[in-house]
């Protein structure tokens, strides 16, 4: 991939990410993530924080090798590794800012101290380490801007910062593991162990060697400079030792914990574990054992890629994927989550490339090398704007256009909930069914009981009747409603259909509830515009309701329903005239209709008692709930 192509892609991802971040700021994180109360941590935590920190571990690993152990062979990569650490940790900080619910409170751990919290310790370590990395990288900046006094101060104190950085990294790399010791009931036993902090620290060292190798290979390739294979193959050897040791310890731990048998069972989690350990340790270690592969740039690129993917999977597993089973919940990040994580990473990548071009990050990539790459990729913009915009702006024109397009496309592609704020979901109501039952005396108390199924009907020869099975949201929680007996009872008390059927469709005598109360929990619009439009003759009919042509065709400027439908009866007691076109949700309507009446009658009717107004009067346990007849209804 060419440098320009890569940068175009990165700018595109940045644009998409920025749109989602802005929406997240406007409407809160819930509007752009697929998280739930049971899975409250997702890609932004697992991928953008827990998996990204060990990738930035290259910074302290290389700092220790070069500045503490004086392994000068890796000097060429030291500054690149520090910069990698800097952009990774900055991305972590940015990702965390948008992940937490109240983003401007990201600084609160500075003021509210809670020493028992692992997260508190991690937050402080990352914060301090970011400062340390900035100081370590400032060498390149003072060099560039030629500030001799500052430079000598920084160089004299540098070893203090290096040591502080290593100690801070030891703490937070391991504490990321400690954090998940708090989830023994969530995390699968193959991952959950008290050794987790140690594993996290160890792998961050092994992975750090490979991430800086990977990055160096890619960057040197992009700028068409010969790759420093001597240092990279050396890092490969160290990574092989560290990751090999990790793999060994991992299996030892599993055996000690007595989970060895688990490894051979056929299970989604176990397959996941094997996949992860193969990618993160076994395959890379096996390949790195061959000097031939360590010395080949292509082989090292693929080995490092495998290890990075595998180790990221390890962190993602611990942070969430391997907990899904225990929670019986599902979660997969939706694309806006990916857009934010990838957008932040892309921005980090652009900053990295910017620094590589402007400062002496890799001594092999100097101004000449950068100029050569750009010269070979120069395009001729035969465009009128070229007259006014000098050629060097060709780059910014391309990237800004891509960025703007990505922002707009992302805004078009996000779900409506992300743009206008999350809305409750619809739960359509289905009409009730009718079933024949035997109505028998209730042995446990007053009232009667319904028996269903062929067997029950045969046993009880008399008292057969049809009842409504009210299960409007199909949750298999039934209310059996005896319509016949309600008619009899209510007519005897001087009521008629309109007592319950308070509003009917134009030619109906008694419209069914679900015809208007169309949603289970939400208020629903009971006016059907399409139907009216078709009935009134399409275009010709508009003027029949939207009479005044000079006003916008909205509800408040439209003829009232009753003017055309004088026969449509409406019980004034029900229905707010202000909201005459909205019907309450089904559940509210049913409860409102039934409970009020029941409560009134429990006192006025002699044969009723306290239970008549209780939930169980309707929501009752009918005998034989598990019988096949009930299952048929479900």
């Amino acid at each position: 991939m060419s440098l320009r192509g890569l940068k175009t892609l990165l700018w595109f991802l940045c644009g998409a990410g920025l749109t989602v971040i802005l929406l997240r700021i406007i409407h809160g994180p819930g509007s752009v993530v697929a998280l739930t109360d049971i899975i409250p941590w997702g890609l932004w935590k697992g991928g953008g924080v827990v998996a990204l920190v060990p990738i930035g571990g290259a910074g302290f690993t290389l700092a220790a090798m070069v500045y503490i152990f004086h392994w000068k062979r890796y000097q060429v990569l030291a500054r690149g590794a520090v910069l990698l650490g800097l952009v990774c940790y900055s991305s972590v900080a940015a990702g965390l800012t948008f992940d937490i619910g109240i983003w401007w409170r990201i600084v609160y751990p500075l003021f509210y101290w809670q020493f028992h919290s692992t997260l508190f310790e991690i937050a402080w370590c990352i914060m301090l380490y970011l400062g340390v990395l900035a100081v370590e990288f400032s060498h390149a900046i003072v060099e560039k801007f030629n500030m001799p006094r500052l430079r000598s101060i920084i160089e004299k104190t540098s070893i203090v910062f290096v040591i502080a950085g290593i100690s801070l990294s030891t703490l937070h790399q391991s504490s990321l593991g400690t954090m998940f010791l708090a989830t023994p009931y969530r995390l699968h036993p193959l991952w959950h162990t008290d050794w987790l902090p140690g594993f996290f620290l160890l792998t961050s060292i092994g992975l750090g060697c490979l991430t800086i190798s990977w990055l160096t290979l890619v960057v040197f390739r992009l700028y068409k400079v010969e790759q420093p294979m001597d240092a990279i193959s050396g890092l490969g050897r160290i990574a092989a030792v560290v990751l090999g040791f990790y793999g060994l310890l991992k299996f030892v731990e599993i055996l000690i914990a007595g989970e060895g048998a688990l490894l051979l069972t056929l299970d989604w989690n176990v397959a996941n574990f094997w996949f992860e350990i193969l990618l993160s340790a076994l395959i890379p270690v096996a390949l790195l054992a061959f000097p031939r592969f360590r010395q080949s740039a292509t082989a090292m690129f693929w080995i490092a890629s495998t290890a990075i993917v595998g180790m990221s999977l390890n962190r993602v597993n611990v942070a969430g994927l391997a907990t899904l089973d225990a929670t019986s919940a599902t979660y997969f990040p939706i694309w806006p989550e990916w857009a934010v994580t990838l957008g932040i990473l892309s921005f980090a990548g652009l900053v990295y490339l910017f620094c590589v071009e402007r400062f002496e990050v890799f001594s092999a990539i100097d101004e000449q090398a950068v100029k050569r790459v750009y010269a070979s990729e120069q395009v001729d913009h035969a465009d009128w704007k070229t007259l006014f915009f000098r050629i060097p702006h060709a780059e910014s024109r391309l990237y800004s256009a891509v960025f703007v397009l990505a922002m707009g496309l992302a805004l078009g592609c996000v779900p409506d909930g992300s743009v206008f704020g999350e809305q409750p979901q619809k739960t359509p109501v289905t009409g009730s069914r009718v079933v024949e039952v035997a109505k028998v005396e209730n042995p446990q108390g007053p009232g009667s009981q319904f028996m269903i199924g062929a067997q029950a009907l045969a046993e009880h020869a008399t008292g057969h009747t049809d009842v409504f099975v009210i299960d409007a949201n199909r949750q298999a929680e039934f209310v059996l409603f005896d319509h016949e007996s309600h008619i009899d009872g209510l007519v005897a008390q001087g009521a008629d259909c309109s007592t319950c059927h308070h509003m009917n469709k134009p030619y109906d005598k008694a419209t069914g509830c679900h015809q208007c109360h169309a949603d289970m929990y939400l208020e629903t619009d009971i006016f059907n515009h399409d139907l009216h439009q078709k009935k009134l003759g399409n275009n010709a009919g508009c003027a029949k309701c939207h009479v005044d042509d000079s006003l916008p065709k909205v509800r408040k400027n439209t003829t009232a329903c009753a003017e055309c439908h004088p026969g449509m009866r409406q019980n004034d007691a029900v229905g707010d005239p202000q909201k005459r076109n909205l019907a309450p949700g089904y559940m509210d309507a049913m409860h409102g209709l039934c409970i009020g009446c029941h409560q009134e009658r429990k006192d006025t009717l002699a044969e009723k008692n306290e239970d008549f107004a209780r939930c169980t009067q309707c929501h009752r346990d009918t005998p034989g709930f598990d019988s096949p007849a009930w299952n048929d209804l479900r």
Partner: protein
Amino acid sequence: MEHWLEWARGPLFRASFAIMILGLLRVLVLQAISLFGLIRQAKRNQRKIPYAVVAKASLRWLIPVGKLFERRAVFSLTSVLFHICIIVVPILLGAHILLWERGIGLSWPAISMQLADILTLGAIVTGLALFVIRLSVMANRAISRAQDYVWPLLIVLPFLSGYLAMHPAINPFSYEASMLIHVLSANLIFLLLPFSKLSHMALFPATQLVSELGWFLKPDSAQKVMTTLHKENEAI
């Protein structure tokens, strides 16, 4: 059809409107950057930029009636009317404001439906007239590119379809079909706007400054203009 309509005025509109706003901002920023560069270059070459003259010219051309009116009265009048119509109607139409209010809760005073009707018809007539003028005048044809012919027609389209949708009695097509054309063509305009000559709606305040600075450009600039217009083989 309804689903397409929903999509066109929901996600598609969001995307194209955002691209228009952001694209215009981008054009402005790029213009500012290169203007500063050009001014610095001019200063380095000890050239004086006559800011007072530029400012006066900018103000004069803000309403392009003065000078142009003397030479081509019909054209300049049509053009001004066209611009007034196409700016006023989309922004101040009551139905559009209702949509904004429903979507993001912002509203502003609307013009009456009668006035909107008149202005819409005005936009259609002047737009077509501009197209005819461009076709009929030789000097115009000489400096025209393909997009110069397409734009007046493309801009007339949403006005025509919108007018038909609002007047069902004279609309030979169904309401949905005319709405779909209306929304789709408007979206297409938004989408192309910042990447075409229509970006003058953001760039026009500095046009005079740009052409003033243009005098300091390289000798072969004129040739490049011709190349850009794809008319390099024609006589100037």
